[in-house]
């Protein structure tokens, strides 16, 4: 899993059959210090509650589809958590 910030929403009327009703958001991956890193990606919102500005956790690859109610969907990034806090631990 990585940290990411929701930066937008995607509206797509024509989608693969299993994607109907799916919330699609644009997320910007972040470093652990919450700085943007890499390219934004479109992620399915498994929680149905994330929105622009939210700090979230995302999961990539096959496990992204596992987050959705129907596990056999063409999804490669999914939002699986809304982050309340990131705390640094010092040994």
């Amino acid at each position, binding site marked *: 899993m990585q940290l990411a910030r929701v930066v937008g929403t995607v509206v797509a009327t024509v989608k693969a059959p299993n994607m109907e009703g799916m919330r699609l958001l644009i997320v910007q991956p972040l470093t652990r210090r919450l700085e943007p890193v890499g390219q934004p990606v479109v992620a399915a919102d*498994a929680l149905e509650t994330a929105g622009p500005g939210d700090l979230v956790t995302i999961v990539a690859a096959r496990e992204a589809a596992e987050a959705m109610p129907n596990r056999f969907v063409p999804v490669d990034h999914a939002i699986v958590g809304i982050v309340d806090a990131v705390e640094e631990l010092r040994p």
Partner: protein
Amino acid sequence: MKLARVVGTVVSTITSPIFQGRTLLLVDLLEPDGRQAGGYLVAVDTVGAGAGETVLVLDEGTSARQIVGAAYGPLRTVIVGIVDAVEGPASLASVAAAPGMAAASVPRKPRRARARTGADG
């Protein structure tokens, strides 16, 4: 599996069910010699890893779900071990110690005991 160091926690109340009640830790990925490799992961802790500890991180879904006993769910990244030492040409004598701690000779049982008493803070 990857070598990593525990550097933080992630608190998330609204999550997929498979993460509920589980500890999420931030881990920095490491080279075998203990240097930062660049990059990090948010991982579910299954071994009770503590701050600054070097850990083994599994980043593959089917194995990860097997470890927590779940048939399905978006779990992929799991801490599966606490590393005492990495040996061989590519490594230092020990990567178990956190930065600032003595790197040499970190015996297994005393190390765990020290982590539990919090004497390393």
